[in-house]
């Protein structure tokens, strides 16, 4: 046992921080806020180019997929550091679509899509969820019928985030209605501007706008089927193992804490001196270390190429639930200031981050595999409780 980071990881963190401080300008942050993670925008485009040049986005990919095959701990260090500084380091196109294409796409498809993804010309929305297929994703019903040269798609998706801003949709469709429901799903790529696709915005609690997408006789050519027909479920479930590190980072929670203390120091020193307030802060520090323990535990297991679904679930639950508890406590300590949004300018505490993160905390708990299911995974696969 040795509870300390090896020097190469600390050096890597320092290197990232130097890079971050070079790029973290008010202009970049503004563009990021306005585009809500959609990528694009002149500064972000240049920023992503610089990230690519560093090779950090694919550093842990296996060499046969064009990566450097580095230990997943490097990715963990990068994600945590970027999260602490709230800097972008990729989105679902990079972490979900690109690896799936690299593994399951044929040579022609890789040539057609990957370069565009890496240079930012192609961005993808993920079309998995449907009104009646959420946690039980395999229940999806959007139908693709075979026709000459391709497929005709009929149906509806919901929560197709970034659909409006993306060039393509990574679409899960039903290609077989007989047999087990997960064995009749296929994955296809469709251009967002294809005739028959309509997009309707759904503003959310956090301020983020997601979309419903409707498919009315949408034609998808044969060459856009990814992987085998009816083999979509494997692709959906497959993720590069190393991407599972840092899924529930400590960095952004720690940042929330530090910003809260900065605010109290500058704007409400009498609160910071109050023993009751300090006790609450101590509690947050303790909770943060509990979560850090689970996040590191999971990352270290993955770095050893072990798979421990229980540990990944623990980190996921703990990070998502702590985000709610910490921001909630922070808002209580801030009083009415806690409710001010970024628009309140100077008055708001850390640009309204606590209330913003509080509002976005539900998605982290029910999304990405709802916490109820995660707890059952821990029970069955980590503890050995009967199903």
């Amino acid at each position, binding site marked *: 046992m040795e509870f300390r980071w090896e020097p190469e990881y600390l050096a890597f963190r320092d290197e990232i921080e130097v890079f971050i401080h070079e790029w973290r300008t008010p202009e970049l942050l503004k563009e990021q806020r306005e585009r809500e993670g959609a990528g694009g925008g002149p500064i972000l485009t240049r920023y992503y180019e610089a990230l690519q040049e560093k090779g950090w986005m694919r550093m842990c990919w296996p060499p046969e997929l064009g990566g450097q095959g580095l230990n997943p701990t490097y990715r963990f260090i990068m994600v945590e550091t970027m999260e602490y500084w709230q800097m972008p380091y990729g989105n679902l196109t990079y972490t979900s679509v690109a690896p799936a294409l690299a593994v399951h796409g044929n040579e022609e498809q890789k040539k057609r899509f990957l370069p565009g993804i890496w240079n930012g010309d192609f961005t993808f929305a993920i079309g998995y969820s449907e009104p009646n297929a959420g946690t039980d994703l395999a229940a999806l019903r959007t139908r693709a019928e075979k026709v000459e040269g391709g497929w005709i798609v009929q149906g509806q998706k919901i929560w197709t985030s970034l659909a409006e801003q993306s060039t393509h949709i990574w679409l899960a469709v039903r290609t077989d209605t007989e047999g087990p429901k997960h064995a009749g799903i296929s994955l296809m790529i469709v251009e967002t501007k294809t005739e028959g696709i309509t997009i309707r915005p759904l503003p959310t609690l956090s301020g983020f706008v997601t979309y419903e997408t409707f498919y009315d006789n949408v034609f998808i050519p044969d060459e856009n089927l990814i992987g085998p027909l009816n083999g979509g479920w494997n692709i959906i479930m497959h993720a590069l193992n190393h991407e599972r590190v840092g899924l529930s980072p400590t960095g952004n929670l720690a940042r929330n804490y530090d910003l809260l203390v900065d605010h109290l120091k500058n704007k409400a020193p009498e609160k910071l001196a109050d023993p009751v307030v300090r006790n609450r802060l*101590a509690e947050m520090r303790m909770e*943060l270390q509990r979560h850090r323990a689970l996040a590191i535990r999971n990352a270290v297991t993955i770095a050893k190429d072990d798979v421990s679904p229980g540990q990944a679930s623990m980190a996921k639950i703990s990070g998502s639930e702590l985000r709610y508890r910490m921001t909630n406590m922070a808002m209580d300590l801030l009083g009415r200031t806690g409710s001010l949004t970024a628009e309140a300018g100077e008055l708001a505490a850390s640009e309204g981050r606590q209330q913003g993160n509080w509002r976005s905390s539900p998605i982290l708990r029910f999304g990405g595999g709802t916490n109820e299911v995660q707890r059952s995974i821990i029970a069955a696969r980590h503890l050995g409780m009967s199903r």
Partner: protein
Amino acid sequence: MELDLTETQELLRDTLRGFLEAEVPFSQVRECEIEKKTDTRLWAQLAEQGYLGLPFPSEMAGGDGGLVEAGLLVEEVSRRAALVPIVEVMAASLTLKRKCSGATQLLESVLSGSAIVVPAVLEANDSFESFALEADAEGVLRGEKFFVDYAEAASHHLVVARDAKGPALYLVDSAAPAVKCEPIETMGRTPQSRVRYDGAAGTRAGGADAVDYLIQIARALTCAQILACMDSSLEQTVAYTNVREQFGRPLATFQAVQHHGANMGMHCESSRFLTYEALDCLERGDATEEQVAIAKASLSRAIPDVVMTGHQLHGGQGYIEENDLYFFTIRGKDRALAWGTAEECLEIVARSAEEKSRWL
């Protein structure tokens, strides 16, 4: 970051576990509880097998290990709920070895099992911050200590006393007539005493930094004790819910039951990390007081949640003393109160509230 035990540590843990399971049946623990006595038979065996020397250098016939090995020893002994002063002796003797001088002979006797040294720290005010018991220029102690674990079984007390230089550690022969132990009964059912030192002769062993070291390592080793209680309670609960059937199916198949189990499991997992991180960092000399306090606060908060959930899932079966579950319930909560409660530890953490948080 290496979070797994080394092969040697793993072997040590397995050997210890096998040895203790064979040598300490829970019936023996129940007997000690009823007679309110220390398990001297087990203590002699631990000494004889060389386990007490684990964190000491080989020149002393020790095992060349450190606090992590001491933690493993504490954890395994505590999984048997054994009534032996393992945390007390480890903390006192490691402090003597590392922060004091002149106790070589006593330490040899401790490792061979012929002497037992335990700390005597708290007083009526139950505080780690201020001590009234005084030592005069000749090293004569006057005053009273409370909550002295295994005071009667010990041959020596390592007493925190105030002298001209501030708080200091004094070694006292507890057989001396000026030392009077009066047993106190606690929920944890471990031997404890209130001890009067009416002019007892003491030898100054170390100053304020030694007092501080003693508290830090005892606090971290107590985490290992609590961790053992947590893990044992969880393991027993998983096993029980897998076989106990209601409504025609094992309890474990109910989702609500699984979720209780998962919550217990998460506490165990983070507690294990925090405990061994504190021990490992203390061993290397780079643990902060805050870090150790966070570990102790976290485990002290978690243990009642874990054991009470264990009881919830056992129903009446876990409520009777024929069942082994209660050992971990009462010992776990009792130790949550020892060497700094969650509240006391959070107060320490609160002092660093302005410091940047640690996220890697």
